């Protein structure tokens, strides 16, 4: 009892006893003034009932004759039917890319290639609303993210690499840069349009041609992007977009005429691709999973650190390879930070992704939701303590509330395996060395965050972290000029910036 009183004194600072209301201090974020629904209009967007493959500058039905549906994960309604490319379709796409490479694209002066890419960037800006709404409907992410992040960043990538197209000789000083050839690019479902831009922009700027395969749950923005390439009058075959699932991707990356493979996705598939590519002479870059540590020191600006943690793990429902999914917090501020975090997740608005006030959207697919549930169950079974936002979930669609675990040990599955959902594992450390040790104690190495008021500590810690990207007093910030990529099982190769050109150039 005496101990408790002393703690209270320490808290209030003036020797006053805290008021009796203290036991009930819990903000009421819902009462009194509730926001009315603010739905983004969908009237400016036409989703066709069915989409074919974009091969050789034309829309062609799949020779496989197979089709599959893509749904809106927030409503489970079917949006469109999409062609499933078989081996023959992949072959046709790669051959058209090869023809376009030899006939047009490798011969075209960089300056001219740049003009084409600038055109795409501008068209993306002009049709930003169409792409944002489509991205949100097909993938489940909140409209405020697709509108403010995905689409503007995608356009920025095309602008940035368009600028490099006629300056490639300066990218590798003293050496001559040449394109590689046909690129097989396989992209994930978490940032469908943005990843298409990350892949296509540098490849095309460097003089390569591409066969792009978007993920089977989110093919629509890549297909609409293909329409932009068509409208922009690109030479036929420079960009080909084929849709399908794992088998289509496998056929693409193993195709003998594909000279360069770029893959973003799971570590498991990445390993298979690397095995398949071994000994073929194919160039390869992989951007795979992550289990990033967000390290918060006691001297950090805590209210802002909470914002960074929120942005780190609940951005895009946690479907982010560089998500700050492990929070390492200095033990002396653990209780304060967790209290603030628990309070803050109650303000996150989960619901209709098309509502402009939605913070957390739908889980991308049923499969992913099941994976998240399984891992959360394992956390409960292993003895971690679960805190959830307590929001009501819509009855249809795939949803998981913002959640975090405390009492997490390094040996728990939730501290090691990538959950790829809105679930954070909170661990504590006592000293900077321990923080670094725990942060690096993972098979992954994509990203990390450091929160402290002390500049010198930022440099000291970030140099010891084995992570491709380290954010200081911020998290999940992306820019086309900044290289992005991982260490260890998070993959290799860099995307973005001057470094991103190396993956698409042959240096002589």
């Amino acid at each position, binding site marked *: 009892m005496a101990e408790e009183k002393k703690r209270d004194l*320490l808290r*209030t600072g003036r020797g006053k006893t805290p*008021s009796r209301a203290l036991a009930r201090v819990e903000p009421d974020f819902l009462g009194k003034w509730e926001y009315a629904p603010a739905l983004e209009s969908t009237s400016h967007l036409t989703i066709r009932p069915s989409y074919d493959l974009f091969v050789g500058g034309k829309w062609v039905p799949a020779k496989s004759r197979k089709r599959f549906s893509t749904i809106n994960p927030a409503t489970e309604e079917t949006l469109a039917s999409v062609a499933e490319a078989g081996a023959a379709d992949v072959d046709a796409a790669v051959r058209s890319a090869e023809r376009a490479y030899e006939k047009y694209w490798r011969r075209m002066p960089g300056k001219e290639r740049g003009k084409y890419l600038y055109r795409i960037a501008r068209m993306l800006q002009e049709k930003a609303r169409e792409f944002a709404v489509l991205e949100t409907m097909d993938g489940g992410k909140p409209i405020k993210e697709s509108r403010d992040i995905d689409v503007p960043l995608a356009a920025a990538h095309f602008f940035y690499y368009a600028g490099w197209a006629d300056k490639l000789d300066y990218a590798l000083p003293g050496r001559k840069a040449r394109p590689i050839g046909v690129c097989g690019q396989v992209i994930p479902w978490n940032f469908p349009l943005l990843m298409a831009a990350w892949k296509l922009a540098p490849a095309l700027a460097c003089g390569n041609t591409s066969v792009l395969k978007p993920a089977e749950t989110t093919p629509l923005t890549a297909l609409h992007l293909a329409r932009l390439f068509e409208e922009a009058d690109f030479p036929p075959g420079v960009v080909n977009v084929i849709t399908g699932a794992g088998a289509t991707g496998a056929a693409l990356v193993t195709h003998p005429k594909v000279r360069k493979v770029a893959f973003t996705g799971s570590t498991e598939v990445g390993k298979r691709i690397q095995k398949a590519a071994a000994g073929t002479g194919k160039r390869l870059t992989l951007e795979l999973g992550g289990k990033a540590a967000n390290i918060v020191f006691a001297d950090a600006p805590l209210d802002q650190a909470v914002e960074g943690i929120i942005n780190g793990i609940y951005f895009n429902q946690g479907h982010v390879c560089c998500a700050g999914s492990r929070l390492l917090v200095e033990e002396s501020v653990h209780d304060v930070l967790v209290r603030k975090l628990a309070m803050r997740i109650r303000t996150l608005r989960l619901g209709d992704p098309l509502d402009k006030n939605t913070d957390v959207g739908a889980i991308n697919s049923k499969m992913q939701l099941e994976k998240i549930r399984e891992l959360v169950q394992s956390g409960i079974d292993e003895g971690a303590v679960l805190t959830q936002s307590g929001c009501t979930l819509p009855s249809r669609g795939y949803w998981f509330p913002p959640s975090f675990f405390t009492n997490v040990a390094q040996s728990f599955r939730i501290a090691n395996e990538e959950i790829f959902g809105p679930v954070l594992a909170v661990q504590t450390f006592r000293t900077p060395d321990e923080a670094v040790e725990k942060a690096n104690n993972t098979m992954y190495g994509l990203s990390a965050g450091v929160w402290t008021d002390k500049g010198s500590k930022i440099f000291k810690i970030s140099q010891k972290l084995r992570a491709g990207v380290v954010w200081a007093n911020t998290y999940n910030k992306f820019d086309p000029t900044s290289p992005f990529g991982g260490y260890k099982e998070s993959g290799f190769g860099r995307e973005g910036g001057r470094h991103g050109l190396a993956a698409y150039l042959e240096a002589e």
Partner: protein
Amino acid sequence: MTRGRRLRDVKSDVKDLAERPLPLVFPFPGRSVTVDQVALEERSAALGKRSIKKATKVAGIRLAISMCDLTTLEGKDSPGKIRQMCAKAVRPDPADLSVPSVAAVCIYPDLVAIAKRALAGSTVKVASVATAFPSGRSPLSLKLTDVKRAVSAGADEIDMVIDRGAFLSGDLRKVFDEIAAVKETCGEAHLKVILETGELETYDNVRRASDLAIAAGADFIKTSTGKVMPAATPPVTLCMLEAIRDHWLATGVKIGMKPAGGIRTSKQALHYLVLVKETLGADWLTPDLFRFGASSLVNDCLMQLKKEETGRYRSEEEFTKD
């Protein structure tokens, strides 16, 4: 004093320095709180993107009107001006009696008695600036006389300014003691402490001054006098709301917040209400704990209400300008 002294005399200065005690470290026990500028401004801007439409907008605008401290703080203020403004405060829109009265009028101390009479029988409070507003550059005894005079004339609320010179020179004890003395002199009157954030410049300073004012007895903390630019901004308000939240979490005591200066449009006001709602929750969405210090905000709010009601913007001339 030092001019003309010879080198051999100077030794003693060092001794003087050594005898001077260092100021106490403040805040007393506990952590000192730092604020990250970039992340704070980002959060504030993100909350500015909330889409407030239809019924939410109307309810928010009505709430904002009821939270206004209708203000005039000019050298040319006269009894006539005060009486006219008081009428506006009680009934902002004579054509629509459902529009609530504002929370208070905010005026200089010598006009308190006039306002008090004009507002008799209404719910509108009288707030008076005091303590050598706006600069605060007077001896404490004069500042306290200023406060006493306003209180005895009937002021319900006192808006004091802190000694920014003392704060920036590191003499936090002086700032603290002055606030504590003013609080004591206020008696029953509520005390709002103006930090003049435009002069403090950094969020670290704003946060520290907020903690200091709250610890010394402020009932409300207020951003600005309105005489220094920048006055209230959303991020500076968020920074102060976070100080209020930390105090609440630690003690259960609710401190009020008043951004003042530069808030002219209902759209701005709604942004502030969003900051309050998502930082402290519905408990603070009341004139008892949140105020706007503003003069032209009320009319913009009325104009927006009319627009929501009729679907059309009306001319400025249709709204009374007192």
